[in-house]
């Protein structure tokens, strides 16, 4: 009952190595949100400021998200993903 999956000749090779690098997406989204919020932060109305206990939250959040987004993009550029799996890796661990 404990057989491993049938990895016969027709079983295609794993394509896991083609998975994209998530860091680009996290970095991209946070930089985009960061720019949007930072710009919005320059147009904060007095009512909005009073609502948020006198903290210009869009500005601070925007800057914070820019920093995090930049960190991910920098990490991605400085240490790119390498797939050093052998070409015959089946992904089934066999």
């Amino acid at each position: 009952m404990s057989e491993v999956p049938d990895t016969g000749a027709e079983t295609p090779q794993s394509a896991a190595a083609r998975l994209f690098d998530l860091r680009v997406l996290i970095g991209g989204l946070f930089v985009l949100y960061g720019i949007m919020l930072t710009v919005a932060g320059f147009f904060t109305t007095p009512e909005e400021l009073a609502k948020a206990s006198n903290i210009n939250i869009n500005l601070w959040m925007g800057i914070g998200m820019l920093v995090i987004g930049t960190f991910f993009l920098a990490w991605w550029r400085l240490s790119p993903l390498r797939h050093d799996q052998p070409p015959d890796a089946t992904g089934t661990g066999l």
Partner: protein
Amino acid sequence: MLRLHVNPFDYTILGIYFALVIAIGVIARRAVATSEDFLLSGRSLPAWVTGLAFISANLGAIEILGMAANGAQYGLPTVHFYWIGAVPAMVFLGVVMMPFYYGSRVRSVPEFLLRRFNPATHLFNALTFALAAVLIAGVNLYALALVINALIGWPIWLSIVISAFFVLAYITLGGLSGAIYNEVLQFFVIIAGLVPLVVIGLHSVGGWSGLQDKISHTKLGASAFSTWGGVGVGNWTNPLGDWIGIVFGLGFVLSFGYWTTNFAEVQRALAAKDLNAAQRTPLIGAYPKIFIPALTIIPGLIALAVIPNLGTPKGATYNDAIPLLMGKYLPNGALGVALAGLLAAFMAGMAANVSSFNTVFTYDIWQTYIRRGRRDRYYLQVGRVVTVVGILIGIGTAFIASGYSNIMNYIQLLFSFFNAPLFATFILAMFWKRTTPWAGIAGLAAGTIGAAVMHFVGYDIAYFYPHQVLDPTHATINAQMLNFYGAIAAFVADLVVTVIVSLATKPKPVSELGGLVWGLPDPNAPDPASVPKPAWWASPKLLGGIALGIVLVLSIIFA
């Protein structure tokens, strides 16, 4: 009064996020060629990705809203769900148990039971897990629809259809990789959405001391800030009951049962690229887990301090704490991000269950019992179809949740019946090679019955009521405490029955247990000398030890 003033700027932010959610599914599709690519990400992901997905799979919106509700209702004792009730189990999973799971190359937690015990044990676990997974996916879906309805006014059915469509799209396309990548992204967005609430909220009540002062004037009182106060056995006053229930019921049985055997969690580690990365998955997840209470319990307390009549018949319910703070404090823009985080968290809570359900159903039920020995391509197709079916069942079961006022308790109740006995079976399976195949199913069944019996008998036991006085209406029972004791009952019943049946039946030959039981090495394992030793900072023992140390220090500070 919950209605948020969402404007086009917020909708733009939401739109960008949801476009990205779908994009992840579409791009991850390219990396799916085999059933293991689809159901286990081809075991290729780095530890930081699986580690954050590990914590994110648990950081669904029900968890976030529920823990904020517990924070408002009980105060700081809620940290027991994070510290003693999670971190030790995560460390144990990473340091002790992961070599059995990852090293034996099983593709699911039920498959471990199949190899260690017998088909009966396997089928029992696979079916109960699959049932729980679709139920909880439905709970998430229904809760999401309720929140969208309250916050932005969409009809319930529309929210259910749209959110189910998004989850369906990114899982059927990208498989587990689509789910895991979205979970990691969601982790950062939900944190970005919650941090501003805490910052603004604490600023407006005058910081931590201002919060303590304001809470001391509420019905919670100053004891809200003592996590271990009133846990004496016999005369407990802590909202979570006595220390036996907290330490053994929550910290040992429920926590270890959930974190070390729930496949929705363990699956993330099985997707890691090697054993070291799999071991580090729950350990990397443990660090955010330690600090997430700051983003859930503190908003709950802030809401109690600043929202009039919260948790009373005249006011909003505790579950509304975070949405109420969002409406009260956040300007458009920040509001859009917080809303994106909240909606993403609902989808992640559902997606984690669906992506583990499809794996268990495809490999453990379909491939093992119904259609064996087909080509891999066939099982890839089954995985996709089962994903669609699972989501449809989730929609159907969504309404089961509607009969319960506190969703969190409902989920805990489910886990205490299905999950509580599991850890007893696993611990014996991994550390006592005499444990026999038939003891597996007998123990699990006995434990599940034990939990259910305790749950129903407990309502007539005075000890579970405040001041230890029976309430004939059963309304004031300490449901959390009863749940912890139910877990203890399940554990003891499972342990006793497993040992008795083991002594009366025939064990598996030692030759079939290699790699599955402590002290019996896997004959197929690579030579230890040929596996590169991880860097010192990647040592599971070091990472686990530091996490436990931080929890210990924090527990003393906030005792």
